[in-house]
């Protein structure tokens, strides 16, 4: 027992020593600008979060090489939220404790909604330690309408914008569609806005199925495929993404189901691989960017950017142009405000006009803090310069919805601080 006690004491001493070593913060000549990033890095949607993390590391490294903002470099601080609002709020608490002024988040409107609420309440109660929520992918329309907030900036097209582009991009001879979406805030938003725009722009189309499925839980999609077959639909219009989409497409392929997939998010990781050759001219998506758009619009810098991404050890396609826009506009706002104080940066960010990497005009609207930006409808086909995920097929841009096209009204009544 004496030996054990000695071991225990020396272990305790070691722990104290180590914690003393690590408690002192290293003093840098210039402090970095910390930007927190939270998304699922584990769980069923980890592949998406992981890909976005790599995107941000690449974009921020590039921005730092160009000087960062206010002569300081950006530092990315990732947090795993497991796509659970509760976990995201724990991460938020940690970010606030570390005095991080900005948090980016790109997956899951359920988490986004919780973050808007938590950030708003925190900032109202703690004016000396505020944090800004930069939304790069929580897309439900409600977040910049019913739930709009001064401390929330969305740098991605809302569901409403995407739905407008999506319905405009449906082929004219399409008459029967099946709506399949995930049963949570985002999927319900897609369901609502898709029906709204179908009624407005394409009243000739019949909705033969309108389904909400459990979010991230379904392993076996064959019952859904059977239902789609039985409905006689010519196309499945779905906002499903990542696993919920890739498994659906895989299941449809296995069953030999011959329908179009007019999706919102199949350009994200895994989609092209899931459908493969069976997707030729049958799969379409609404995307911020793909390398072929850069070719069409003759913007070699954007093409080079996407190629640099490829050659720097990432074997995936770059499509998150709005992430580049977000970091650029954030840096511009910090420079304009002359500080990283969230209040000053927010005032500089709203009503900011900028150009994205493709040279298109983008506007951060003051009314609802929604970025107004263009979207491109791509069809999965051969004969394009860049293919997707080495499938031999790539996204051919067949319709563009400009920033002006997608400047849609909002019902936001923003409560401004002070």
């Amino acid at each position, binding site marked *: 027992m004496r030996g054990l006690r000695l071991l225990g004491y020396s272990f305790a001493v070691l722990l104290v020593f180590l914690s003393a070593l690590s408690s002192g913060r290293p003093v840098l000549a210039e402090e970095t600008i910390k930007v927190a990033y939270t998304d699922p*890095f*584990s*769980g*069923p949607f*980890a*592949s998406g979060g*992981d890909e976005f993390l790599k995107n941000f590391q690449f974009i921020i490294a590039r921005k730092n090489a160009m000087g960062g903002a206010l002569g300081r470099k950006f530092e990315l601080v990732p947090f795993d939220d497991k796509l659970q609002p509760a976990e995201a709020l724990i991460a938020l608490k940690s970010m606030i404790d570390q005095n991080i002024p900005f948090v980016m988040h790109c997956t899951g409107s359920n988490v986004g909604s919780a973050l808007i609420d938590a950030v708003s309440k925190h900032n109202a109660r703690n004016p000396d330690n505020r944090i800004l929520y930069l939304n790069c992918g929580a897309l439900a329309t409600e977040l910049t309408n019913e739930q709009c907030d001064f401390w929330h900036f969305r740098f991605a097209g809302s569901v409403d914008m995407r739905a407008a582009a999506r319905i405009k991009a449906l082929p004219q001879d399409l008459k029967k569609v099946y709506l399949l979406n995930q*049963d949570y805030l985002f999927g319900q938003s897609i369901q609502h806005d898709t029906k709204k725009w179908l009624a407005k722009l394409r009243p000739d189309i019949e909705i033969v199925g309108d*389904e*909400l*499925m*459990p979010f991230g*839980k*379904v*392993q*076996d999609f*064959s*019952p*859904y*495929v*059977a*239902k789609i*077959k*039985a409905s006689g639909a010519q196309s499945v219009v779905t906002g499903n993404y990542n*696993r919920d989409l890739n*498994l659906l497409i895989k299941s449809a392929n*296995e*069953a*030999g*189901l011959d329908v179009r997939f007019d999706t919102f998010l199949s350009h994200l990781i895994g989609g092209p691989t899931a459908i493969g050759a069976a997707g030729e001219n049958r799969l379409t998506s609404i995307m911020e960017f793909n390398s072929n758009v850069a070719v069409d619009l003759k913007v070699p810098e954007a093409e080079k950017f996407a190629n640099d991404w490829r050659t720097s050890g990432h074997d995936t396609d770059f499509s998150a142009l709005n992430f580049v826009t977000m970091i650029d506009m954030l840096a511009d706002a910090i420079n304009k405000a002359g500080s990283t104080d969230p209040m000053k940066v927010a005032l500089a960010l709203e009503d900011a006009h900028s150009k994205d990497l493709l040279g298109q005009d983008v506007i951060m609207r003051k009314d609802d803090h929604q970025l107004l930006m263009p979207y491109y409808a791509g069809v999965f086909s051969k004969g394009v310069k860049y293919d997707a995920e080495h499938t031999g097929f790539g996204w051919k841009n067949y319709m563009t919805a400009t920033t002006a096209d997608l400047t849609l009204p909002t019902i936001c009544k923003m409560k401004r601080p002070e």
Partner: protein
Amino acid sequence: MEIVLVSLLNGLVYGMLLFMLASGLTLIFSMMGVLNFAHASIYMIGAYLAFTVSQFLGFFPALIIAPLLCGLLGAAIEVFGLRRVHSNGHIAELLFTFGLVFIIERVVQMTWGMLPMPYRVPAVLDFPLFTFYGQYFPAYRGFMLLVSAGMLLATWLLLKKTRVGLIIQASLTHPQMASALGHNVPAVFTLVFAGGCVLAGLAGVIGGNYQTTEPGMADSMGPIVFVVVVFGGLGSLMGCFVASILMGMIMTFAVVINVSLLDLLKPLGITLSGDNLFTEFMTVPVARIGALLPFLLMIFILMVRPRGLMGTRDT
């Protein structure tokens, strides 16, 4: 009609997969009185091991090797873990297996990473077996049915027709007497635990490429298997079979049923309007709550007949 047939086949495949997993669990429980929470984790390990082995040796060697490795793991858990905890009672054993769940999940995440593994159906089985109503039935599902039926038959034969099975059955109900007659009852316990883990591992090999192979797969399969075991009755293999097929069918058919409670009441001329909770409750279609139904059934059976359908042993 076609949708009924399709759902019947798909429900059968899913039910047989559930049975492969649940049968091991119910055997272990009937043998040792321990509800092995880590059973779904062994399933996950089986899938991951199959993926790794199939990368070097191919799918069919993995079909044999991965379950055997899981059996060895099970034997190790029993000899070095459960046996020591056994003297502290059932609660301690339960907590031990519960802790194993977390350990195994972390080990899998550390070894293979957080992202899903590209564990694919082997090319030799990746073709449509037959076409019906314009839809293909993949050959791999037929293979799954074959393996699970074969495994069921082999387990039944082992338990009922061999000497080893006889000793196992005796140790089940009369461990002291069997021990007094000179049989190595602790070794029998280890054998049964390892056997249950072999079954779970085999289910993992088959199910890993039918579903996705990722660190969350134990969490998604675990609760359903638990429901199946409780519903079928602890200690009864037949009950487990009936419950698995039933749950598989329910979860598959629920998706295709679009009626809600209100639709059932429509012939009586009842209509509802308004945006309140009651209307929400009455108008939700069965398809949306399909994932909930097995748990509702479990609550029901625990209220009405706690022993389960064909249980031989109280919890």
